[in-house]
């Protein structure tokens, strides 16, 4: 099981270590640093590294490496999932998962880690339970604590810990009872040179914010549940009901959580909302090139495509770019060679265009590779797969909750090859 955890920042300082069994010397991280050096780019550090006596399994989140040390055969996914959960918890508690936030709250961090893992076995990882055990820091509470001398550690057993619904605490009370669902869909796609779709799928999630008193039992039904054939559920969902009736029936955790995530992959269902016309070429003899890109909307069901941003990793030989944008603004970072064009909203009457000259390093050979265009966009009030919530019913409690559903479609890993 998980033996130790080291938190390492980008400059290679170990700023926190925690051991759940015997102490493992920091020097074990040298193997990690070695791999990090080899990988050049921080994102390319392999997640599983073997050392003579241990295995290092790491994740990279928010500019911090979470490096765990294990000694015996352990499912690596288990460790990786757990590390992500640790990062999520920090995020949840401190609002951000950064080196400063962790250092500022080091005692709470330690208490949390101790509570999350016992002898390498996960103990309490649900944020609802943790928050009952260790209260998150707020300015008000620290003032109150310093006056009254009380602590931020709960001294009673968390109620949900052992019940059949460990994700919910008892005695929840709200004056305004609300239940919100955000249906968020991200389109992952690869579009090839000629504009045809090589690969496209939708990664959807339903994130919920539930503030309901007592023990509400909810069921959420869809107009077209057939779309959902590959779904991952939050543990609260009753699988049997879904299998038989295609209804999401559950007692929700309190607060924000991810209800389901799903994938829609059949090509005909995945509409591609934008198209890109591009002309990028390099000339060897003049050490220059041309760049001309136009973005236009398509198949967006009458909604506006907004928040469009295009990023391009230009080849190394590119020194600078002189472009004019008909809409939005662009920047080119000559160090990282990243071109960013912030387009904003697309109006079909006047398509945004960016064109101009590319300056290449003189004498260098013409770049072989053509850069891929990475596109981001947002469409409000639309789930591109067509998924629609039908109704939400509540049982078990008497009050009338306020209900809301929001749809949004975004670009995920949306790439256009040139």
């Amino acid at each position: 099981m998980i033996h130790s955890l080291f938190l390492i920042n980008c400059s290679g300082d170990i700023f926190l270590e925690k051991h759940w069994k015997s102490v493992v010397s920091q020097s074990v991280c040298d193997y990690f640093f070695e791999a990090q050096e080899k990988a050049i780019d921080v994102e390319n550090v392999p997640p599983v590294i073997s050392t003579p006596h241990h295995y290092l399994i790491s994740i990279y989140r928010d500019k911090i490496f979470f490096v765990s040390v294990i000694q015996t055969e352990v499912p690596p996914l288990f460790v990786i999932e757990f590390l992500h959960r640790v990062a999520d918890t920090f995020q949840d508690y401190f609002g951000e998962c950064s080196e400063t936030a962790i250092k500022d709250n080091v005692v709470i961090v330690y208490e949390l880690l101790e509570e999350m893992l016992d002898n390498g076995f996960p103990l309490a990882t649900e944020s609802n339970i943790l928050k009952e055990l260790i209260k998150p820091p707020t300015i008000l509470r620290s003032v109150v604590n310093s006056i009254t001398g009380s602590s931020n550690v709960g001294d009673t057993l968390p109620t949900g810990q052992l019940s059949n619904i460990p994700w919910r605490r008892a005695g929840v009370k709200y004056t305004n009872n609300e239940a919100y669902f955000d249906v968020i869909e991200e389109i992952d796609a690869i579009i090839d040179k000629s504009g045809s779709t090589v690969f496209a799928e939708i990664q959807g999630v339903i994130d919920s914010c539930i503030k309901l008193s007592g023990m509400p039992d909810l069921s959420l039904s869809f107009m077209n549940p057939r779309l959902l054939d590959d779904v991952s559920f939050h543990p609260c969902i009753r699988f049997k009901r879904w299998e038989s009736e295609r209804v999401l029936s559950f007692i929700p955790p309190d607060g924000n959580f991810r209800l389901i995530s799903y994938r829609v992959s059949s090509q005909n269902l995945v509409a591609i909302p934008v198209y890109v016309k591009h002309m990028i070429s390099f000339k060897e003899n003049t050490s220059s090139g041309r760049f001309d890109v136009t973005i236009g909307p398509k198949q967006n069901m009458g909604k506006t495509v907004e928040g469009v941003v295009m990023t391009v990793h230009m080849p190394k030989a590119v020194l600078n770019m002189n472009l004019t944008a008909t809409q939005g603004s662009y920047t080119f970072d000559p160090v990282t060679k990243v071109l960013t064009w912030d387009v904003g909203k697309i109006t079909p009457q006047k398509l945004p265009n960016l064109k101009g000259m590319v300056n290449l390093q003189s004498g260098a050979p013409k770049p072989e590779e053509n850069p891929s265009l990475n596109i981001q966009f947002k469409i409000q009030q639309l789930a591109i797969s067509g998924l629609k919530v039908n109704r939400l019913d509540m049982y078990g409690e008497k009050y009338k909750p306020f209900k809301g559903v929001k749809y949004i479609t975004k670009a995920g890993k949306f790439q256009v090859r040139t």
Partner: protein
Amino acid sequence: MTDSKYFTTTKKGEIFELKAELNSDKKEKKKEAVKKVIASMTVGKDVSALFPDVVNCMQTDNLELKKLVYLYLMNYAKSQPDMAIMAVNTFVKDCEDPNPLIRALAVRTMGCIRVDKITEYLCEPLRKCLKDEDPYVRKTAAVCVAKLHDINAQLVEDQGFLDTLKDLISDSNPMVVANAVAALSEIAESHPSSNLLDLNPQSINKLLTALNECTEWGQIFILDCLANYMPKDDREAQSICERVTPRLSHANSAVVLSAVKVLMKFMEMLSKDLDYYGTLLKKLAPPLVTLLSAEPELQYVALRNINLIVQKRPEILKHEMKVFFVKYNDPIYVKLEKLDIMIRLASQANIAQVLAELKEYATEVDVDFVRKAVRAIGRCAIKVEQSAERCVSTLLDLIQTKVNYVVQEAIVVIKDIFRKYPNKYESVIATLCENLDSLDEPEARAAMIWIVGEYAERIDNADELLESFLEGFHDESTQVQLQLLTAIVKLFLKKPTETQELVQQVLSLATQDSDNPDLRDRGYIYWRLLSTDPVAAKEVVLAEKPLISEETDLIEPTLLDELICYIGTLASVYHKPPSAFVEGSRGVVHKGLPPRTGSIESPESPDTAPAGGPAADQPAVIPTQGDLLGDLLNLDLGPPVSGPPMATSTVQMGAVDLLGGGLDTLIGGSGSFTAAPSTTAATNVGAALGSGLGDLFDLTGGVGTLSGSYVAPKTVWLPAMKAKGLEISGTFSRQVGSISMDLVLTNKALQVMSDFAIQFNRNSFGLAPAAPLQVHAPLAPNQSVEISLPLNTVGSVMKMDPLNNLQVAVKNNIDVFYFSTLYPLHILFVEDGKMERQMFLATWKDIPNENETQFQIKDCSLSADAVSSKLQGSNIFTIAKRNVEGQDMLYQSLKLTNGIWVLAELRIQPSNPSFMLSLKCRAPEVSQYIYQAYETILKN
């Protein structure tokens, strides 16, 4: 108001200040001080000097303060064991606290303090907590047992905690069950032999119930535990699968992968005709694909596992090719894995898409990735014949780009394509030759030289090309040098007139100026060949080459089956069995896929055959324990053992663990066997003589077996159905002090068999072949050959169950087959087994009576003398004979090859056909087999 303030006081004298604050009367000040101490501890500062002061703060009602002190204790107790004792009382008291949170906390912390003196005090509170009324405390205590076991395993066993832990598996609370399973699994890992997790249908049912209700982490533990269970038939397997399938929709990817493991394993038991089998296959695809949309680290692990799954059951993901397409901003480790899987999934149906993608990748930035993509194009050409042409033209396009590493990589793969499809694409050679100068990597240079040599007759200036390489001969790497030597010899044999000078030059370079023995040897061989018989040289050097196999990089099927059992673990990431890399895994239990034991399958199906005949007399075909399986990854059996493992899986599966470390020697043996045809002549004679002699004795055996012991008739050991047409029957015999295995090999297949070799697994008496298996001519269809294989007893020894079990691997040009047989013990009775009378008496008395075993030999109507002479033939010697009250008492002795003496007393009543046999031996476990030997000898 943040905690960073605790880090600021770094000036000298800090410890004193802290000490003062810790001893302050004010609670608040105390707490602040402890926080400062903890903060210093986290960054690795030594604050152990404050130990007594911190421990003093322990007795408090404030839970936070208590927790902080506990944190401190865990860190420093090891270095201050004497001081830590001071804390024991508080711990014991806290274990009785009315608040379950405090009880659990106390027992948890105590388990973390790795000090022997403290663990002694831990036992009592732990016992109470394991039976606590509050499940939270019980579940914490369960983990604590694992901790304690880690510190002092003996103590845990002595105190009977393991049994209590086992009881917790039936606890009413699913969380407790999950933690008990987790703790037991961890303990079992360091105790491979103990049957801690002894699963039966009842406990499985409990686990399955708990599975639905416990936390995600608990589900992982339970699923991993379930994967070790072996259902008794396909119905049970199916019902478990049905209850595990919902886990595939879990949000936690580790749960999903563990569920996949269980399903992949139990699926093996389901019949393929079952509707459910098809449903299950369909259900497996979506969750696997979903894993690929997670964070890159998760993707990586998922991809490594998918790689295994795709090899085992390609049908699951065959329609999902597109999800493996690479995105340009994937981390490199994800890209490389995706590429691998793309090639595995490539088929005629999707090859166009795949090629278009690969071509796209070949223009990417990352050099490693580009290389692999180019190589992948070549592999597609070899795998999908219909696409070869398109692949070659794609490769030519890439060569036109003139990007150095792309060109080199392309040439290396084109060489392979030439070998797969000879005389088809040679038109491209001209294009390749244009790029000769740009090649700077040895592999590419060697490939190019090979191409020039192989097709010398079609390249007008082949001699010039090769000559240009020759100039810097000594600067080349060995690979290139060897290739150049061969290529020039080829060239010479094809165009002898113009190249004589060249060949002499290269031969002298290789033989006289080189330090490399390989190169020198190859040079000499060529030289001699050319000088003695150029025609023979032509036959050797220009011989037809075997086609290269389609899938050279597939994991060996037995290893693959083992790895399938380890889906989701480190083993699956490294594609090695855990024994090959996990530290301290002494005698890890090897896992194998369950054989298909259908209860409803039709008996005609060949898959069910093992349930019948052979399985019955091979009860111990699958030894579960053993450090047998060496690093199979390094195995490289001479002729490729490729081809889809599906059809034969039941046969091979049974033998998964049979592959002893001894297989290395099998390969060694077969290697020398094929490589040295000239030296075998001498031994041939010997072997032939041996078998002739054997036959002779067989004839006389019936008359008076004075010099040879009893030989049982041959029985079928390996039915043709299980060995792709090779049938093996045989028996064991002992003649004049030498043991032999008399075999009849029958070819019932439609193709000729050759390259036979045999190897035994380690066994109780160290039986091993004394000579390689000699089959003189290839075995034609429907022919059989009799062979007598001499055996010795100097092989490595491992106790088998049953004792006389012998596991045998036989290899031929088709495959490797495994079977096991029981050998009669009397072949091990040595000729000098006669004991002196006095010695006999002394020994009889000396061996304790517990070691005496009695048997009855029924229905034997021989007289005492006949018995005596019959047994003598098999080296059981009568030392004395007495007549007591009308009974004949025979006192006999025998000795086994490993020096074990066995003394026997045989009581014969003239009127009664049942004899009483008493055996005394210092190793009583052999007695039963001696009795069996007696019985066989006397009754035949």
